[in-house]
């Protein structure tokens, strides 16, 4: 399973369990549509930190980075490239 599929599955299970993963478009705006609220964002970031071993406590996080599944995937990609924070 690709990382983007994995993120989609998590978002659907956590925030919209009544839909199928293939019904959530990777570019769907999760924030403007009220699917992920500010507390939900913290849960999502916590999950990303554990699942992909990212030092999320040390990264400067902006909500924009989590606007859609594709944006989340890009965030993970760039965090992995940078490697663990010193």
């Amino acid at each position, binding site marked *: 399973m690709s990382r983007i599929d994995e993120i989609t599955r998590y978002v659907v299970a956590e925030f919209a369990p*009544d839909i199928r993963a293939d019904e959530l478009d990777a570019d769907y705006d999760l924030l403007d549509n009220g*699917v992920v609220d500010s507390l939900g964002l913290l849960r999502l970031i916590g999950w990303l930190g554990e699942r992909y071993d990212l030092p999320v406590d040390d990264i400067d*996080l902006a909500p924009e980075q989590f606007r859609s599944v594709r944006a989340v995937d890009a965030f993970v990609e760039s965090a992995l490239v940078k490697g663990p924070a010193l």
Partner: protein
Amino acid sequence: MGDHLSGLVDSRAKGTALTFNGADVSYRELRALVGDAARVLQRLPGGRPVGLRVRKSPESVALVLACWAERRPFLLPPYDLGVDASAALYRQAGCGHVLHADLTTVDTGEPADEVPDLDGVGPLLTTSGSTGLPKVVPLPDTGVDRFTDWAAGAFGITGGSVVFSYAPLNFDLCLLDIWTTLRHGGHVLLADQERALDARYLLRAFTHARVEVVQAVPLFYRRLLEVADSPFPGVREVVHTGDAIPPELLARLPEFFPNARLRNVYGCTETNDSLIHDSDPTSGDPVPIGSPIDGVQARVDGGELLVRTPFQAGRYLDTAITDRWVDIDGETWLRTGDLVRRDADGVFHLDGRADHQVKVRGVRTNLRQVEQALQAHGEVADVVVLAVPDDEAGYRLHAVIRAVDGTRPNSLTLRSHCARLLPRTAVPSSVELTADEFPRTSTGKVDRKKLLAERV
């Protein structure tokens, strides 16, 4: 313009006025920003209010100050209010233009012939209503003046005072932490409302300067204490407001704020701060909402708290909404909707709500308004929105939907629909489709308690 401005920002003030995301803005720089915004306002046709679509930042603070200086009433809805609802509010207030923090302006296209009377009004704030739209609360400048005078005295805000501002810019709380402070030459640390739950960000913002006064909802203190590893001895006033502070959280505040007076402030957008109480962190009981502050009158009618304050709006912009403002012996009072009891010392305690309002992340939210928004969706036959208690949010909203026959709306389409009509805090966190009839009480009303009990 300069003359007016001196009443809004202390004209002699020097040094730092604002800090935002690590960057300081001096009073000199703030005055320049206000001047830029004022010149944009001067180019717009007069006699009409403007709409502001802004989040908290030095530029948006300057824009608000410029509106005041130019005596231009300004509608300040929540930044995350749905676009359809925002447009309806701009129409209701007669706004000809909407301004953004970067001073770009958008013509609303609304005709100029239906501008309500806003003589003496500065801010037009919003609060949750039971109809589909938020209610617009026009605040008189005289009330704002009286409030900032009171707040400066009550919390000792003077030149050089460092005050932390947590609430979004559209909240009445900013009258205390931002507008009172700037009028008296203090230094405001602005928390970015987009990062309001990011504990490490909050700690950085809070420790940028030696904060003396802080006002925030309980959620802020919970977040801050999660990451703080040493106390804040410089803080002398801690105000918790907007929602009942859990006793276990209150009990931990003295360790982190050893030199602070801890107080609960109770108020609402319509009347501003009304009651105040010295919180006892050792009691373990729910904190009372308090006693009337100077000049405020309070009474109880059928268990419901009524207040009359020197700061109040006295009306909604839509004068057809009359259920809350009542005339008693020629005076205008607000029915708060809060059910209270008064103890032997005259202190008020909160027992609950007379209507369907709850606080979601500190924001007053009317369940009826959310239900009306959902009901307006073509595939929704019937809906009940439940407020499910939540440790962090206070409450989270859960919608139970009966769909129109042959349709199957999903939680994404329904929440997108709500997001156009409601503030983000009012969009349900979860949506459930059911084929069952809703349970009814003996009087035929939907049995919300039963629905809730089945789901908690």
